[in-house]
Structures are given as C-alpha cells and as structure tokens.
C-alpha cells in the first residue's frame, strides 16, 4: 500500500466561489477518502423568524440564495398558505411557475459557464453567461430584480405580467433557443468535453437514492426525482417529463442540466398559453397555526421549507433543507477513487451552492 497523505482542497480554491473545504486523503494520485467541512459562513437566517413577522420573513427567505432566490420565497409562502388553508388565485400560480422556470434557466446557464471555465473553456463560459443576460433581463423587466426578485408574498404575487409582455418573453426565448442548442451541442458532443467528463465521478443509482442526492445529481444517476411532478404551483396543469440520464458520471449530470433548459422553455411557453385572467393576490388575515414541510424543485434539486407556527405573528420555526446540503454525502462518495486532477470538475458537477447550505 502506498503512503497516504492528506491535502486540503478549499475553502479558497479557483473553482469554488464559495467556501467549501475537503480533506482529501490520497494514495499516490488517487483519492481514497474525503472529509467535507462547511460552516465557514453559516448565517443563521432561520433564527430570524423570531424577530420578523411571517409576512415580512419572505424577504429573508429570498435572501437565502442569490441564484434560486425566487424559489426559496415561493416555497416559503406555499408552506404558509398550506397551513392557513389559502387557495391563491390561479393566475398567481402560473406567474410563480414562469418565474421559477426563468430561475432554473439562469441558474443552469450560470452553472454551464462555470463548469466550462473549470475545464478551461473560457469562450463557452462567455457564451453561457451572454445568453444568461437575456434571461436576467426578462426577470428584471417583470419583477424589478435581477438577483432578488421579491415578487412572492403570502396570498399571491406582487406583480403581474401583461399579455403582450408574455408574448414578447416567449418570442425572446424562441429567439435564443437555437443559440442554446448550439451551446448544448458543445457540452454534449465536443470530444474534449466528453473526454473530460465521461466515466468521471460515477454515482450509482442506489448510492444516489440512499445517500440523499437530489436534482440533476440524482437524475444523472437515473433517479427520477423531480418535485415539479407533485403539481405544486401550476405544474399540475403543465405537460412535461423530467430529464433523466443513467450513466451517473459528470457528463450525465451536465447533460441533465443542458437538456432541462429546453424543458423550462417549453413549460414557460405552455404557461403563457394557459394562464387565465384574474387577480394575482388575495387578502390574508390571521397567522399560521400548524406545521408543514413545503417542497419544491430548485435548479439544484428538492428544497424543503419546514414551517411551524402557533397562531402568532412570529413563526416558531423555519428550517430549510437545501439541495446542496443533502448533496454533500453523495459528493463524498463521488470523490472516492477519483484522480486528484478530477476533483475540481467532480465538485462542480453537483453544482454546489454554499450560500444556500449556509443559510
């Protein structure tokens, strides 16, 4: 047996914009064990429910993450609405769905860019982020915010989208679809990328399921978990199929995200066709008394907002289980047996969002 050495990876590393630390135990160039460490910037946002009314707290929930901000806010208010027995207007449900899919598009494009950069493909990075600007422009035009959208509230949404604008958004997405296809072709068919990703960081179907993997990390290993299938918001009225790949390697996780962008465009198009007229919010009185585990599908996978209220203006508990938090154990398994040189690509392949995990 070769002599084992332990080397630190992170918390500051060129491929990590956020602090994640891994102690990599190596035998020669092979990783034989991994000890992950997070907690460098834990913010304790959940504790603020004791200081903020449940209606105000949505602004905190949205600030858990700067990428899936809207879906955090939406999941939180869905939980409150469920406890209070509120049936919000259908138009608001469709609007939440449209903004959720825009969030997914911009998150996946952001990740594709970062992933390309981690492999040294800077032109692909630039093109991914150029296309992402189009998505962010639409988010800003319809919500007022590029990073924090701030449109969800208990009882509906704060803004409406005019029918003309919805048509314009769909035309805009159709307009960039061929560019997205060209970008996706690079990720799926370029021989250098295939060489870099295929057979690297393999997560088996059983490991993905029982280690708690969610989102593209699970779906890349053939585990077809997609919370949108539960029909929350307007997803129950939309036809779509989760994208699932079966090889479990970095290429499969990349392929899931690349293909999901087209599913998102299709969902937005269906929403634009089916969205009914009507109000976008309703009057809400009282305070939540009860508990609920609200779940939604973020770009990185299933997010859980556990909410417990006692009929007073401040909640008793708000606990968030983010997708990155539950994807850490699968990451440990993914890295065992890999070459040291592949560690950055494998870590990025789960699309870690430490901002979320350090809520």
């Amino acid at each position, binding site marked *: 047996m070769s002599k084992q050495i332990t080397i630190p990876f992170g918390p500051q590393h060129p491929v990590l914009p956020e602090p994640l630390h891994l102690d990599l135990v190596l035998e020669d160039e092979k990783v034989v064990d991994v*000890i992950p*460490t*997070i*907690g*460098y910037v*834990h913010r*304790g946002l*959940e*504790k603020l429910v*004791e*200081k903020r*009314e449940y*209606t105000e707290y949505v602004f905190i929930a949205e600030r858990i993450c700067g990428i899936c901000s809207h879906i955090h806010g939406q999941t939180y208010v*869905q939980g409150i609405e*469920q406890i209070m*027995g509120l*049936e919000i207007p259908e138009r608001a449900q469709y609007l939440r769905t449209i903004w959720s899919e825009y969030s997914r598009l911009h998150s996946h494009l952001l990740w594709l860019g970062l992933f390309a950069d981690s492999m040294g493909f800077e032109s692909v990075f630039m093109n991914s982020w150029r296309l992402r600007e189009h998505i962010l422009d639409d988010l800003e035009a319809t919500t007022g915010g590029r990073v924090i959208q701030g449109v969800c509230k208990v009882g509906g949404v704060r803004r409406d989208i005019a029918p003309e604008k919805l048509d314009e958004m769909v035309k805009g997405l159709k307009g960039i679809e061929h560019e997205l296809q060209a970008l996706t072709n690079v990720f799926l068919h370029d021989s250098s990328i295939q060489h870099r990703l295929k057979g690297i960081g393999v997560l088996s179907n059983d490991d993905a*399921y*029982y*280690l*708690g993997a969610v989102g593209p990390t699970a779906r890349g290993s053939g585990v077809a978990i997609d*919370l949108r*299938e*539960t029909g*929350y918001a307007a997803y129950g009225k939309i036809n779509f199929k989760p994208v699932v790949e079966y090889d479990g390697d970095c290429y499969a996780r990349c392929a899931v995200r690349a293909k999901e962008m087209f599913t998102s465009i299709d969902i937005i198009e269906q929403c634009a066709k089916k969205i009914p007229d009507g109000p976008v919010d309703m009057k*809400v*009185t*009282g*305070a939540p008394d009860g*508990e*609920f*585990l*609200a779940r939604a599908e973020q770009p990185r996978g*299933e997010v*859980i907002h*556990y909410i*417990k209220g006692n009929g*007073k*203006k*401040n909640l*008793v*508990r708000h*606990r968030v*289980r983010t997708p990155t*938090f*539950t994807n*850490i*154990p*699968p990451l440990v*398994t993914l890295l065992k047996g890999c070459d040291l040189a592949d560690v950055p690509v494998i870590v990025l392949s789960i699309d870690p969002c430490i901002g979320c995990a350090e809520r």
Partner: protein
Amino acid sequence: MMEPQQITPISVGDVVTKAEQAKKDGNRLVQIGCTKIEDNFEILYVFDKDYKLTNYRITVKQNDEIPSISGVYFGAFVYENEIHDLYGIHVTGINIDFKGTFYKTAIKHPFSVTIVKEDDACQNK
C-alpha cells in the same frame, strides 16, 4: 392545496429501528431537523418514497443523548452534526463526527436559545 402531512411521535429508542424499516421499505432520507419548544427539543425525521413523506418525531431535553442513524443512512451525518452544533444535543455513533466543528459559530449552540417577543397584535390582522 398540497396533500396534508402526518407526523408520528416515536420514542428515542425506536429511532434506529424506524430508520431501518424506512430503508427496507425503499424510502430515502429527506432530512432531520430540530425545533426548540420551550425546554424541549423536537427532532423530526423525514423519509420519502414516490413523493409520499413518512415523518417521525422524537421529543428530548438538551442533555439527552440520541442515537445516530448514519449507520443506516450514511448521509445522516450532516443533519446530526448540525443538530449538535446548533442545539447542543448529543448524538451518539455518528459515522463522521465533527465533534462540534461542523459549523463555526460565534457562540456555542446558538439555536438553543429562543428570542421571546411580546405577543402584540399581528400587523395584518
């Protein structure tokens, strides 16, 4: 509206058995979370199969010890270390035990203290 959820109270001694049964039934571990209610700590174990949740709850005091289920679900170590670091509850037998260094907090067990605000009228009542 989403489907209503049920939470089944269990004893501390049943935690590992219930986790083993959940895994045998094909459930994945969704999360373990803690809530402080006055002097008690409610720990909620959530499992999922085909989008149907199975929830178990134990209620303990801060000095109580609870068994780890990381021997059943390897990924449980993130939740169990979190519960220890934020609430100060001792979990025995964690497969990767950070011994209080999973989160670097300015104060020890920050979530074990509840900020009590006066029960004034709700703003939107």
